[in-house]
């Protein structure tokens, strides 16, 4: 089973169980997970784009991005308030992919190297500071469990450590982890999880040996994800370079054709 399917299905379950009012969509995989979550026990969950409509009908093609939330149809809760207003209210969830995440739950999307003098410039903080600062639930969805991304301390703190009591979870091909007072701990592992955790020690995850091992996605969740994302746009996020570009083009053409 692919990491894209396993982790999108897992995120869908997480969202469904989190007692959220709104889920802020940041990418196709997170949009698919939120749509699937509605089938998995959160039928009233609203989805929000960054600054745009809450929900829309008909459902957008996932490759068209946030603008498609308006589509040609209705947007029953149009431009009520932006994501950051909603985040402050606490019953909102968001899943993001920072370039670096550290042992204290800090994130970096600014640059690799010293603050203000990056050896490698990255896109920029965008909404990470407000996500991190909020009491709302934040998931980190990473396509690889890599020591490059999972570090003891991020190079540039552009998202601070979360406030006390805020839930932060990490989904990677190694499994699912939660930030607790004593650092990150594993909630469950994939079959490769133990080796991946050992190869990326920066987060300081201490395994007990008693962690549940999950080899396959929950079938009900995976079916819901498939219905939400029949063309597999979620898989683009787990690919890179030319493979991702080719995959994106192919899926966009399928979705455009299906929308006609």
């Amino acid at each position, binding site marked *: 089973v692919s990491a894209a399917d396993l982790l999108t299905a897992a995120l869908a379950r997480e969202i469904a169980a989190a007692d959220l009012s709104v889920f802020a969509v940041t990418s196709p995989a997170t949009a698919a997970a939120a749509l699937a979550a509605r089938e998995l026990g959160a039928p009233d969950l609203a989805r929000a784009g960054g*600054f745009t409509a809450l929900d829309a009908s008909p459902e957008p093609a996932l490759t068209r991005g946030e603008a498609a939330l308006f589509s040609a149809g209705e947007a029953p809760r149009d431009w009520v308030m*932006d994501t950051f207003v909603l985040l402050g209210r606490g019953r909102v969830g968001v899943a993001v992919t920072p370039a670096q995440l550290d042992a204290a739950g800090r994130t970096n999307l600014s640059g690799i190297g010293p603050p203000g003098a990056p050896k*490698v410039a990255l896109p920029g903080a965008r*909404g990470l500071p407000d996500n991190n600062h909020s009491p709302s639930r934040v998931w980190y969805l990473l396509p690889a469990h890599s020591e490059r991304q999972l570090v003891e301390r991020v190079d540039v703190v552009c998202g601070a450590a979360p406030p006390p009591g805020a839930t932060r979870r990490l989904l990677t091909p190694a499994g699912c982890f939660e930030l607790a007072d004593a650092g990150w701990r594993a909630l469950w592992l994939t079959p490769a999880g133990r080796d991946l955790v050992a190869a990326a020690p920066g987060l300081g995850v201490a395994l007990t040996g008693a962690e549940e091992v999950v080899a396959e996605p929950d079938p009900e969740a995976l079916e819901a994800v498939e219905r939400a994302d029949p063309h597999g746009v979620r898989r683009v996020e787990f690919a890179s370079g030319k493979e*991702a*570009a080719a995959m994106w*083009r192919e899926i966009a053409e399928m979705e455009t054709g299906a929308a006609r």
Partner: protein
Amino acid sequence: MSAPSKVVSLEEAAARVRDGDVVALQTMATFTSPMALVRELIRQRRKDITLVCLVGGIAVDWLAASGSISRYVGAAVTMERFGMCQQYRRGVESGRIAVEELSETALLARLAAAARGLPFMTTRGLIGTDLIDLQPDNLKLIDDPFGGPPVLACRALAPDVALVHVHAADEQGNCRVEPTALWPDLRLFPKAARRLIVTCERIADPDELRAEPDRTLIPGFAVDAVVPVPYGAHPTSLFPLYGYDADFHLEWVKAAREPDEFLDRYVRGPATQEEYLAAVGREVPA
């Protein structure tokens, strides 16, 4: 008696942006940006611009490749699924482009303060990050005078000029956006900037706008110049009229490391929007 027309040519509009200006540019990654105006700025070899964007995209990369920007104030620069903006990245890594990196909410706070004539507005998201110490002139942690936890004062930012693209405007500059403004920059820029230049897909009859005044997003009195440019946001999207041009973004991604040929063909070369559309193989939408 009707008010004088604010319609000008693309060349004249771009000439109103001066070297050294602080320019607020509408852009949200692959979403609407006044691209025809950006190309004309590059054709006119504008220099030393401080660019203010919520989330810059291909427009920022072209301006960086052309040596037009010396400073960037914003929350990010990315083409999202098409990847990083390589020319911008090169400019930052070399030190040629200085960056004042903010969160989206901190940038909006700075603009909102300018819009209301206040010295600053406050936010909290950046507290605990490294970004505050990098901008001591514009961000300061202050006590809450009402006894709560500290807040971050974000200094007012009033751009010299803002550049936006809309669906329709009349000759006096009243602007309609369909179905509504997707992003907050389009609502704040006209209030925060000292001057506003609008490009639009079409010039509308004033009676058409007056018939549905609630759909007018920007009032004409806030607008300094209007330029009709069909397909003026290409290759970014102007929902619902057209989506972003994925193939064109990918072509830029391939060309971006050695961009001169691409820029000559699509940016510096075409003298008019018609020539540009012919170069990219697009027709003016009906």
